[in-house]
C-alpha cells in the first residue's frame, strides 16, 4: 500500500528553528520552561527559606546579599518564572472550563498572560528597589 509507505516516510522531527510558533504556542513552551526552572530552583529556594528563618544574623546576611543588583536580577528572574507559570496555569484552568477556547480569545488571553507575568515582575522590581 503506497499511501502507507508515503505516510511512514514523513519527517518525524521538525526543525524547531524553522517553526514559527503562534503566541499561544510561545506561552505554552514558556510555561514548560518556567516550570522546569522552578523545579531546578527548588533546593535554592528551600535553602534561602531555611536561612532566612534560622537567625537574625542569617536574615541580615540574606538582606545584604539582596542589596546587590545581580542578586536582585536573579530574584526577579525567578519571580518572573513563577508569575508566568501562575498566569499561564490560570489560563489553562479557564480553557479547561471551556472559557476562551475560540482562536481570537485564546490569542488575546495568551497576550494577557505574557503581559501580566511581565507586569507583576516589573511591580516586584519597583518594590525591590
Amino acid at each position, binding site marked *: 500500500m503506497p499511501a502507507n509507505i508515503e505516510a511512514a516516510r514523513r519527517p518525524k522531527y521538525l526543525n524547531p528553528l524553522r517553526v514559527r510558533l503562534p503566541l499561544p504556542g510561545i506561552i505554552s513552551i514558556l510555561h514548560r520552561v518556567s516550570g*522546569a526552572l522552578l523545579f531546578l530552583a527548588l*533546593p535554592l529556594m528551600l535553602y534561602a527559606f531555611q536561612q532566612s528563618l534560622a537567625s*537574625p544574623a*542569617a536574615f541580615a546576611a540574606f538582606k545584604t546579599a539582596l542589596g546587590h543588583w545581580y542578586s536582585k536580577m536573579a530574584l526577579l528572574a525567578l519571580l518572573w518564572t513563577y508569575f508566568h507559570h501562575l498566569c499561564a*496555569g490560570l489560563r489553562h484552568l479557564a480553557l479547561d472550563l471551556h472559557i476562551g477556547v475560540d482562536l481570537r480569545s485564546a490569542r488575546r488571553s495568551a497576550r494577557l498572560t505574557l503581559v501580566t507575568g511581565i507586569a507583576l515582575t516589573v511591580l516586584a522590581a519597583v518594590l525591590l528597589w
Partner: protein
Amino acid sequence: MVSYHESGANHPLRDWLVQRITATLMAVCTLGFLAMLVAAPPIDHSSWRQLFLPPWVRLAALLFLFSAYWHAWIGVRNICMDYVGNVRLRQILYALVIGALTAYAAWTVQILWGKW
C-alpha cells in the same frame, strides 16, 4: 518492548486532575501569602519569624510546598516522557526526581517545625 506502566503514564486522568487541584491550592496560598506580606511587611528577622509562628500558617506553607512537589513530579515526568526517548535513562531520571522531591519534603518539615 516497554510496558505502558514502565513509560511513566500510569493514570493520565488522575494526574491531570491532581495537577489542577495542586495548582489551585498553590494559587490560593500565593494570594494569601501576598496579602500577609502587604498587611505586615517583614522588614526584619523578628517580623519575618512572626509571620510563620501561627500553626495554621505553617500548615498552609506545608500544604503549598507539598502541592508544589507533587505538581513538579507530574510536570517533570511529562517533560521526560516528551524529550527522553530512552526508557532506561528516563527511569533513572524518574528515580532522581522522586528522590530529590522526597528529600525536599523531609527538609520542608524540618524547616517548618525545626528550631528557629
